[in-house]
């Protein structure tokens, strides 16, 4: 069975600083990996996805993620965060009939 682990429940970062959110997955087949973000009072929105090719994928709003097969990881990064990046970020693996999510990481950006 597939699983996703996001070890950090909360991350606090200053505006303009860099951000890295960790994600590790467990899946027997080729993983299709996603990062979703949930802003306050909004639905989940896809930031980026990976299923093959260059292990570094670019997403919206300056986010990128790096896939590592050897480490079973798909970490999310942003070079310089803005206060509007405050949200809950979910890593997910797709198994053709739905998504398996991690618990999410709540990011708080302070000025």
């Amino acid at each position, binding site marked *: 069975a597939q699983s996703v682990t996001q070890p950090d429940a909360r991350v606090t970062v200053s505006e303009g600083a860099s951000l890295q959110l960790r994600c590790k997955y467990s899946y027997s087949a080729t993983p299709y990996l996603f990062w979703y973000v949930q802003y306050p009072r909004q*639905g*989940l929105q896809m930031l980026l996805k990976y299923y093959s090719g260059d292990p570094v994928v670019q997403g919206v709003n300056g986010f990128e993620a790096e896939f590592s097969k050897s480490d079973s990881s798909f970490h999310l990064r942003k070079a310089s965060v803005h206060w509007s990046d405050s949200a809950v970020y*979910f890593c997910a693996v*797709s198994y053709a009939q739905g998504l398996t999510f991690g618990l999410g990481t709540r990011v708080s950006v302070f000025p």
Partner: protein
Amino acid sequence: DTTVKQNPRYKLARVGKPVNLICSQTMNHDTMYWYQKKPNQAPKLLLFYYDKILNREADTFEKFQSSRPNNSFCSLYIGSAGLEYSAMYLCASSRDGTHANTEVFFGKGTRLTVV
């Protein structure tokens, strides 16, 4: 319009009473999903429709029903609500649910409180 709409946004229900949640999308997506999200837990897939075929997860098989009268609408039905059903219910859709790399679009959710 890439939105999935859910009604209502908030719902209060009594223990033992039925609950019906509504979802719609106008993207002509063939697959619609229902997820349950409780505080400090990951969103959990309850069931999904691929076209007219309903697939329910094994551990929620008896607890939730659903219908999809047409391509755009999907409902989630709880026959007799219990306190444990209090949660956020997320509806989602995708263009091709048979492929794992397809993007899934989510609604804003319906927060159900059972008292």
